[in-house]
């Protein structure tokens, strides 16, 4: 029997400030008992909204404006809060997108379990043994029982998400909604949690709606995958089928932006453009403006979600094709899309590996001393690291969170001074520079910031952001600077530039912002660029775009680049050499293919193993205890 039946569901946000947004539009699907369904889609396409609607957790200004939700044969669309309460958690539970913040900060983990049990005596029994049951649940997500006594802030992010997961399963629900339950986590930790989740799901047999925009993971884990675009479901297929062939051009583009870095040839594509404005009415297919294969009819006729293959799709082309999407299958997806970026086993046409380095890092270490009340702790953030950066070449620095990547970036750019070792830029010792000299040095070495949302001052226009380095480093002012700023914007693909110069960052999309951040780093014509995870905050479809841009810049301008990331795919695409950092120590250093292909170090292998392999059976974990760093020493 269908456990959850969503019919024609529409959700509208009607905020006071602006026009109403139809975030979810006539969504129709069902989930069987024990089924694991993935929900994919670009950021902002309405995944979380849909999830909240199903859980009946929408809050003003959002409201269900049509359709129905049926759970286990019961229509829950209009139940009031008191009627819903018995259903909640015992039947429908969830892990929120921001599950790290979803634990009550002032009560212990045990109490959060206890109040869940107490609220549902019918599901948990009258006098549940909280310690025993909660302990058991924690063990299921490989956490020690001592976690029960802790407060949320005493746990790491990964531990909090595991607690949230355990909590979601506390009453053995029949349906669990997982809304990106592992965002913001380290790849290795993420892998660990998801593996466990899948295992539990098989064992306990609950149904899952798994929301994510992390393609690889969804494809690997789900039985069935739905793809959302602009508030609509555009495709719904069994996962295996979808990997093989995508029915909808958008799904094709989405999957095109994913690849396995371990492959011989790695090729990624991206869907240019932005999703439509949902506050306006659109005739025709919503994806039409970005669609590479659209036909005239797409502009006027709105497609319905119709059966295709073993699933459903919402595309006129699929409808018209006689044998279930054959039309799309004819053309290789990448050919149909706007941009393609690929890397293969051949060395790139870039600077030679033996060029004179511009930047030499020699035996650098950095120790932080933190005073916390009475006690002082020292952290060895970076330990005896040496490498060199060469013009026209990209060195990638990979490693999990907290491994010291950012610290190295700060040391190189002179934000911080090393505790030991030397850093040289050409003939200058960077580690001893003073104010003036530092300013001159930064004309040559620039930083691309990770978070495009915080790297631009929300109160200053783009022209201002670009004008400052031009003025300070190159002495350009007025019209000349503006001209130059416009050129820079064109360089990073924001054209026509005039349209962007006087905007505030808030008026730009994430990808556009990141381009501005890159343009700003380029402004003083630096010789070295340090890019600190410049794509981690961006949507998958934009990532490839930025990687392509960086590659072009390195090639055209002969810039030496240090590319910091924890995403091996982008490292594989962009870098000539890869350095792997683990707890401040460089554990592996070599040409990209060599490191990824034949990793020597155990840690590197673990990193590689964390990469999802949709459609393939996963090789077993390298035999090492699961992530020691995540355990908090007892009794701290």
């Amino acid at each position, binding site marked *: 029997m269908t456990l959850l039946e969503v019919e024609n569901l529409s959700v509208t946000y009607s905020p006071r400030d602006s026009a109403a947004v139809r975030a979810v539009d006539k969504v129709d699907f069902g989930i069987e008992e024990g089924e694991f369904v993935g929900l994919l889609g670009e950021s902002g396409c309405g995944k979380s909204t849909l999830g909240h609607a199903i859980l009946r957790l929408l809050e003003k200004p959002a409201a269900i404006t049509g359709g129905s939700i049926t759970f286990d044969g019961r229509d829950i669309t209009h139940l009031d809060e008191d009627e819903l309460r018995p259903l909640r958690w015992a039947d429908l539970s969830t892990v929120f997108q921001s599950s790290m*913040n*979803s634990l009550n*900060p002032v009560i212990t983990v045990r109490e959060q379990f206890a109040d869940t049990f107490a*609220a549902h005596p019918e599901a948990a029994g009258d006098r549940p043994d909280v310690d025993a049951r909660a302990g058991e649940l924690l063990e299921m997500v490989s956490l020690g029982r001592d976690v029960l006594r802790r*407060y949320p802030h005493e746990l790491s992010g990964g531990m909090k998400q595991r607690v949230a997961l355990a*909590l979601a399963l506390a009453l053995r629900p029949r349906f669990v909604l997982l809304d990106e339950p592992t965002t913001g986590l380290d790849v290795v930790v993420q892998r660990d949690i998801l593996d466990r989740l899948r295992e539990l799901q098989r064992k306990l047999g609950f149904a899952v709606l798994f929301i994510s925009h992390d393609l690889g993971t969804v494809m690997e884990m789900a039985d069935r995958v739905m793809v959302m675009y602009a508030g609509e479901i555009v495709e719904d297929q069994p996962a295996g089928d979808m990997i093989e062939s995508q029915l909808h051009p958008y799904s094709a583009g989405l999957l095109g932006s994913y690849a396995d870095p371990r492959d011989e040839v790695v090729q990624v594509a991206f869907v240019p453009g932005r999703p439509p404005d949902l506050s306006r009415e659109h005739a025709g297919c919503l994806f039409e403006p970005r669609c590479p294969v659209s036909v005239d009819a797409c502009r006027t006729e709105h497609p319905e979600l119709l059966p295709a293959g073993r699933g459903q799709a919402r595309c006129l082309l699929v409808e018209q094709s006689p044998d279930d999407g054959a039309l799309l299958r004819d053309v290789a997806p990448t050919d149909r899309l706007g941009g393609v970026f690929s890397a293969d086993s051949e060395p790139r046409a870039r600077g030679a590996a033996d060029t004179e380095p511009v930047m030499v890092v020699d035996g650098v270490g950095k120790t932080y001393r933190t005073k916390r009340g009475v006690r002082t702790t020292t952290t060895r953030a970076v330990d005896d690291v040496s490498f060199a950066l060469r013009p026209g070449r990209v060195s990638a620095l990979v490693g999990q969170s907290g491994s010291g990547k950012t610290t190295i970036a700060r040391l190189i750019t002179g934000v911080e001074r090393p505790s030991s070792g030397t850093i040289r830029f050409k003939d200058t010792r960077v580690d001893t520079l003073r104010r003036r000299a530092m300013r001159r040095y930064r004309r040559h070495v620039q930083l691309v910031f990770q978070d495009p949302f915080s790297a631009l001052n929300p109160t200053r226009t783009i022209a201002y952001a670009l004008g400052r380095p031009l003025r300070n480093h190159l002495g350009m002012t007025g019209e000349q600077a503006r001209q130059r700023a416009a050129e820079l914007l064109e360089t990073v693909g924001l054209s026509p530039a005039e349209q962007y110069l006087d905007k505030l960052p808030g008026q730009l999309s994430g990808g556009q912002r990141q381009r501005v951040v890159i343009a700003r780093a380029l402004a003083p014509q630096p010789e070295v660029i340090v890019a600190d995870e410049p794509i981690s905050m961006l949507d998958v479809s934009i990532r490839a775009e930025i990687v392509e841009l960086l590659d072009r810049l390195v090639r055209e301008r002969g810039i030496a680049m240090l590319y910091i990331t924890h995403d091996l795919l982008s490292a594989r695409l962009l870098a000539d050499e890869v350095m792997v950092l683990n707890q401040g120590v460089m554990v592996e250093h070599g040409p990209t293919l060599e490191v990824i292909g034949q990793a020597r170090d155990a840690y590197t292998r673990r990193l590689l193993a964390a990469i999802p392999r949709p459609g393939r059976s996963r090789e077993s974990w390298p035999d090492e205890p699961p992530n020691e760093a995540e355990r908090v020493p007892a009794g701290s």
Partner: protein
Amino acid sequence: MTYFVRRAGFFLATLWAAVTLNFLIPRLQPGDPAQAILSRLTGKSQAVDPAQLEAVRKMLGAPDGNLLAQYGDYLGALAHGQFGISYTYYPYTVTDVIGDAIPWTLVLVGVTQILSFFIGTVLGAWAAYRRNTRADSWITLGSTFVGTLPFFWLALLLIFVFAITLRWFPDGGGYGGGSQPGWNWLFFSDAFQHSVLPGLSLLITGPIGWILGMRNNMVQTLGEDYARLARAKGLSRRRIALTYGARIAILPNVTGFAIALGSILGGTVLVETIFNYPGMGRLLLEAVSNKDFPLMQTLFLFTTVGVLIANFLADVAYGFLDPRVRRTEAA
């Protein structure tokens, strides 16, 4: 260790600064205590007898001469715990005078502060819980209108209505002329009667800050993810409001409350003045207008110490109530 040293250092430095300020401000200004006391006694329309002025100056040890030497003497005496003789209540010592005033202030202001905090927190939490309902509007708007009445003015009206016209309560003082301060029922009931009106004026205007603060904090906490999760978990509204809303929302108010308690020692000058309440606030105003340097200095010292201690306790209490702080503070 350095942490405590720093803390103690700040404590002492603040004390020193406060004490020095209080030493300097009055002394740098015109007029002397003897003149001030006699001018008040004779009134502005009668001449002050120079002989009397001379005698009083001799008695008080007129503070002429080297300011630095005076300052040295003053600090020395303080270090020995000697606060000197009050100029207003000569020849009684400052300690005598303050000792009489402290209990009054502690009881009146202390009780009203605690009640205000309690009432304000409960009403604020209720308003947040019933956000955007009529109860919310009544509480926020009602308390705004009532709470912004200038309370010295309110006090006057209370006196007029309840003391003068209706004669339900006495018009001022801490107790009546008929009872003798002491541990007896008559005195306590008398003192209670006298505290009703001043207490009321403080209670009417006191809770508004807490109401609005609590409401705003709680509206915020109820909008956080953990409150939404609590709803998803199917917890009762009560439980969500208490454990996920109020419990967290009250935290930022704790510091404010501790400071408010610390400033109790300063008394409430306006109310105590209007009601002739024999507390610290009125003493302070009297000390200031009589240029009673020793009394004023000591009152200032007391209030500063009170606030400093409250600050310290606030930190401790905060650490106790907020587990997020607990670890860092304890470590």
